[in-house]
């Protein structure tokens, strides 16, 4: 099962406005392809050309080498099934009747559905988990259930190619991944070629293994996630700055769109704060200060650390040290320099190990020089101290004048005692 789809120089013009402009790509049989692209990039138009709803104004779509337009309606429906974003269901067909409609392309006029068709309907409903709804009216189902019924109908069509046009756009996260997992299963177990237009790139990356990125009716990139989903491509096709990272739990490529605050509204550029980095635990503190538009610096962290990514993402200076080592003397100097140029140093609730001890000692150095030092969640330090030596060191810091704070909210109150009014005045 599975067909090659070869799209050659496809053009589609809507009211003299080109929607598809020489679109070209090849989908091999058995591919599991996500079609990405901004609104208006031509995803739906492309899929509607492939599913023969629209007639291209130019170019070719070849199914295993033969022209798609040459097929009869029924022949095409035996090869391709489509799951649209939404199906009008304002009538009283039962779920079973809807799924049975998937057999339409196989039945001759006046031919009764046979046992074989009924078995297939039953199997399709089991596969998509809608058997218990068989005798319910489609109109009475929720959006998620309805979409699974449509999926069952597509399965019942026994297609070689399954086309999904933003099938998850109206679904909750549970149904989203359930539906895409189903498509992936059809691909894996039955060799069905799947092409799906998906808005949510991070969702797509979890379920698909090939990607086609459309931009302005052309294919901007095609290939594996790493080749297609890059900051440059996203910037070019979606027009937003973005950065990529690995999902901390699944390790797949993920994308995050940068937030750009209007600098004029909150300008605290003169407030330089240095935050001791290390792990995800520092992130809430960093983000809070970032929202206040402080001029942050971070360090010292390893290159793979989330605090490091945060600093890179926002363009803050950061001290990067090789992982699993103690700091070299150059790094140490650099770090001291950063701390000295800041008005205050913050130790967020990070874990402490042998590697951090030197850092804590350096904080002590600048504290003695009169730098303001804030320690967040002092009580929690003992629990996060894996070296057994950091807790006494930090207690010493407090003894020498460092300020202990309960949480990062208190930190804001201390750094911006009249912050809110100041913000209001400036805006």
């Amino acid at each position: 099962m599975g067909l090659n789809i070869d799209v050659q120089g496809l053009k589609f013009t809507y009211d003299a406005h080109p929607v598809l402009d020489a679109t070209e790509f090849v989908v091999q049989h058995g591919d599991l392809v996500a079609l990405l692209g901004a609104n208006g990039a031509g995803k739906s138009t492309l899929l509607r050309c492939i599913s023969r709803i629209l007639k291209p104004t130019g170019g070719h779509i070849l199914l295993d080498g033969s022209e798609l337009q040459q097929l009869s309606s029924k022949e095409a429906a035996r090869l391709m099934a489509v799951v649209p974003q939404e199906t009008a269901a304002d009538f009283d067909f039962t779920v079973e009747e809807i799924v049975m409609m998937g057999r339409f392309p196989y039945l001759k006029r006046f031919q009764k559905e046979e046992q074989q068709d009924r078995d297939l309907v039953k199997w399709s409903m089991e596969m998509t988990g809608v058997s218990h709804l068989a005798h319910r009216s489609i109109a009475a189902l929720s959006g998620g259930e309805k979409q699974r019924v449509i999926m069952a109908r597509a399965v019942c069509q026994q297609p070689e190619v399954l086309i999904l046009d933003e099938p998850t756009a109206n679904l909750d996260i549970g149904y989203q991944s359930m539906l895409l997992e189903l498509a992936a299963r059809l691909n894996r177990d039955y060799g069905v070629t799947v092409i799906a237009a998906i808005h949510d790139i991070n969702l797509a990356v979890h379920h698909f293994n090939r990607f086609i990125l459309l931009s302005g009716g052309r294919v901007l990139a095609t290939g594996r996630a790493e080749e297609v989903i890059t900051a440059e491509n996203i910037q070019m096709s979606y027009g937003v700055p973005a950065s990529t990272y690995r999902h901390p739990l699944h390790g797949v490529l993920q994308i995050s769109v940068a937030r750009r605050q209007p600098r004029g509204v909150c300008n605290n550029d003169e407030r330089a704060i240095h935050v001791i980095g290390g792990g995800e635990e520092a992130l809430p503190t960093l983000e809070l200060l970032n929202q206040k538009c402080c001029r942050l610096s971070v360090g010292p962290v390893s290159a793979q650390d989330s605090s490091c990514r945060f600093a890179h993402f926002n363009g803050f200076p950061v001290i990067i040290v090789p992982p699993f080592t103690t700091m070299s003397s150059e790094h140490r100097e650099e770090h001291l320099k950063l701390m000295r140029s800041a008005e205050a140093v913050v130790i967020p609730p990070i874990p402490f190990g042998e590697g951090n001890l030197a850092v804590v000692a350096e904080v002590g150095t600048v504290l003695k020089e009169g730098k303001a030092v804030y320690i967040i969640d002092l009580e929690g330090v003992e629990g996060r101290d894996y070296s057994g030596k950091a807790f006494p060191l930090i207690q010493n810091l407090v003894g020498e004048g460092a300020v202990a704070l309960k949480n990062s909210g208190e930190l804001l109150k201390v750094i911006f005692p009249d912050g809110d009014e100041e913000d209001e005045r400036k805006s």
Partner: protein
Amino acid sequence: MGTEAKKTGIAGIKKPLFMVALVALLFFSLITAMIWGAVAIGWRSIFTILFDALPVYDSPAITDVTPVYRDILLQIRLPRVLLAAVVGSSLAVAGAVFQGLFRNPMADPYVIGISSGAALGAVIAMLGGFSLTLGGFGAVPLFAFAGGLTTMIIVYSMARVGRAVPVMTLLLAGIAVSAFLSALVSLLTYFAGERLHMVVFWMMGGLGGATWRQVSVMIPYALAGYLCVSFFSRELNAMLLGEETASHLGVNTEKVKKILLVGASLLVAAAVSTSGIIGFVGLVVPHFVRLVAGPDHRFLIPASALLGASLLIATDTLARIVIAPSELPVGIITALIGAPLFIYLLKKRRKLRYFGGGG
């Protein structure tokens, strides 16, 4: 949904039962309509006359029946009852097709303007006083038939975008053309002078003066239209899910639309030309069938045909006997009975199950 299991249990036999009931109802209305009238004929006499009329059988009891009864039944009542059956089922089937095709519960057989086209044709024929006849038909039915079909063709070509005919455009074009033609009909009616009552009477719809000739011409049209429509009932089911979905399932939507339009239009034009504009049968009957048996057109089409026939026979019988020996236009009766019935269904079910209330 505690009743779900129970519902499933009776669902299997519900449709056959309903169909049997509809056939029985049709039989019952046929007989009743032949019994009742300005002159009542006993049911024994009716069977005697009917069996005797069969070419292969001569009833020995025929000598007991008054010959005038025989003439009333065979020459007046029987053609009228049969014409009512054919017109009623044509309108109901056309209504079901248009509602399905337009996915619009308000569609009726006249939705794309066939009635106003036919009315214009009929009014022109009446006011023009043409004496032309063709195949035993006067100018009025001929003009009405031509007017109805011409309107369908005009609406269809107006709605065409390239090779496709979007149903929504078709509906809108139908409404616009219909409004324009109705205005023309009103204008002509205004100048109708002494022929006014003739025009008004025609437009109310009626089966008075039905002849075997009308029945014999109507039946091929009805049969052709009905076959045409029922050939494509599975396609019509798919079309209910939307044209794109139907196309994904392998329906050649443009072709199916064209065939269904032509089939349903033939049914309507033939019905209108023989009996004027009879409202409500085509609107109410398909809705009623859907309420009982769901939207599957493979069942809906034949069931609507049976129920439409029974309904028009029954209402026409009423039209004949309410103020006998004079009679009312049947269109008034169908509207008087159909509208409250429709509202009752609407209130009782809260929704017409066809369009499930956007669920």
